């Protein structure tokens, strides 16, 4: 009788350790990375358990990059943040002091373990013949993109369009603004996040061309085989989605070591290969070469061409910025 009870107690205890990991960290991320981190987390947790003999649970929270940043400021206890653009992590540093302002210099490659860019997704056969940014301002072309006020991806979309117009018009800002204004007047729905726009384009079948993260574009092709085509424009923008440790949170929870190891893991060849498989452009040369077939050569401008994120945000996206001034709602 006593033995049975002991056995039961042991079973309960071991059961408990399986269910409840010794340690857990929370990764607060942006919309399209759900599938990527789901795989990365599995691999890192396995490694960590083997090396340290203690189990690790990595919790995920996804949403629009700007919204996620706000949640962390409001107290969402992220050990690490992996957002769509540096400004959203700057905002956390500026508004809450949870991490130092120089966070971006603490990890290699501007703290961005991968890059991505913006491409076009069109319906099969490209019925509207969309080839480049210039086609998006034509009458009768409906463009799907999320709202730059709330979505990280949408800000990259906007800046890429703006860069294209600047180059076409020899640096004339007035003409560039006219161009993006025309483009956004062709947008029938402004969703708050990238994934919302994807669903609008694919499930609700609205619009002729979808301005998408490159990885999301490939995901769409995988989810809907044979229904969509990817069009690479002549010029796009180099997106560097950054990652960072949230110092005050990891120190309070005592998770600095594992959180740091998690971020460093993202730069290992193993993680870089997973990153490439999910259609993000790896930093690691070997992984980049292995997956090069997915990534067409596009002329890429960078955020530095806009004077960095803090300046770009202030000029274009803050209240009263360029976007507010040029945005005219879609009229069918």
């Amino acid at each position, binding site marked *: 009788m006593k033995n049975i009870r002991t056995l039961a107690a042991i079973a309960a205890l071991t059961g408990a350790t399986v269910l409840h990991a010794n340690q857990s960290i*929370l990764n607060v991320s942006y*919309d399209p990375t759900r599938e990527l981190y789901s795989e990365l987390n599995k691999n890192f947790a396995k490694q960590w358990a083997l090396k340290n003999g203690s189990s690790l649970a990595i919790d995920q*929270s996804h949403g629009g990059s700007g919204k996620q940043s706000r*949640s962390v400021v409001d*107290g969402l206890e992220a050990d690490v943040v992996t957002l769509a653009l540096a400004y959203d992590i700057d905002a956390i540093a500026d*508004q809450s002091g949870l991490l130092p302002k120089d966070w971006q210099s603490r990890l290699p490659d501007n703290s961005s373990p991968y890059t991505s860019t913006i491409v076009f997704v069109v319906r099969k056969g490209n019925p509207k013949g969309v080839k480049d940014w210039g086609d998006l301002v034509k009458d009768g072309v409906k463009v799907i993109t999320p709202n730059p006020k709330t979505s990280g991806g949408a800000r990259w979309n906007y800046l890429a369009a703006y860069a294209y117009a600047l180059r076409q018009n020899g640096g004339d800002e007035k003409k560039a603004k006219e161009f993006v204004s025309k483009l956004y007047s062709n947008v029938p729905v402004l969703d708050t996040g990238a994934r*919302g726009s994807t*669903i609008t384009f694919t499930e609700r079948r609205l619009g002729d061309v979808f301005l998408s993260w490159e990885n999301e574009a490939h995901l769409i092709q995988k989810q809907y085989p044979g229904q969509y085509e990817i069009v690479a424009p002549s010029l796009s923008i180099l997106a560097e989605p950054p990652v960072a440790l949230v110092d005050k949170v990891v120190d309070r929870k005592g998770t600095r070591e594992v959180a740091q190891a998690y971020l460093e893991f993202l730069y290992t060849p193993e993680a870089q290969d997973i990153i490439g498989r999910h259609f993000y452009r790896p930093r690691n040369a070997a992984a980049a070469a292995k997956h090069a077939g997915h990534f067409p050569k596009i002329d890429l401008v960078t955020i530095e061409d806009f004077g960095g994120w803090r300046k770009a945000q202030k000029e274009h996206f803050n209240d009263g910025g360029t976007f507010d001034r040029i945005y005219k709602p879609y009229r069918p």
Partner: protein
Amino acid sequence: MPGSTTLHLKLHRPLRATGDRPAVRRFLIGSVLVFFILFLLLPLVVVFQEAFSKGLAAFVETFRDPYTQHSIVLTLVIALISVPLNTVLGIAAAWSVTRYRFRGRSLLITLLDLPLWVSPVIAGLLYVLVFGAQGWLGPWLREHEIRIIFAVPGMVLATLFVTFPFVARGLIPLMQAQGMKEEEAALTLGANGWQILWRITLPKIKWGLLYGVILCNARAMGEFGAVSVVSGHIRGKTNTMPLHIEILYNEYQFASAFAVASVLALLAIVTLILKTRAEWRAEQELRASRPSITP
């Protein structure tokens, strides 16, 4: 002339009752029915159809996913905490405003409805403003290691807020109509406050109370807006069924999203049946309380 009388009645009855012509009546009833079928019944059918679109095995598989299981458990836990609390609070509120006259009574009655007037999203944001890291109580809460926002307590609070009116609103008209003669009678027969509550008042209002509790529960389990704002969307930790449905949908797992949605829809249908029955019994309760003049 009996013939002309019937004719007269036939011609005038509907006109006298509503003042509407038959064509108007037919149009109104017709458009309500079309609306009902198109926007309420059809989507409900589609939910179940989509849920089984990949077969029964896929449907079952959805519920073997630990995140789905957790979202169901969390939804039940939140309802299990917030519904009893709101039941007690609702009875106390209804008791206070129907039994006592006090300063601020009409203000209290107005405030009871507040959660119905305020958008749930605003309610959630209010909690972030109060309990968030940048909010009034944020620093104090952090010092004491108390987590409210982006954790289960905040989700319970948000649910409490949006579901607060249902019990009280169901009870107040009933208790007002019933009056408190039976309670007074019990008082003259020696019952104390608790005995009056348990033996007289609760049995008197039980169907009205059940009606309120059912509505409260349905809303607690289905609430999206307010809970979404304070949840933080940590899967396996702070995702309720409605939030989980959104996540599944956004991850292209449409069949799974609809499978979970079908459970909520089923819950809604069961709620509707229970509610209708409770409503009917509550009406009887009310009728029984009216004095009869028959010998």
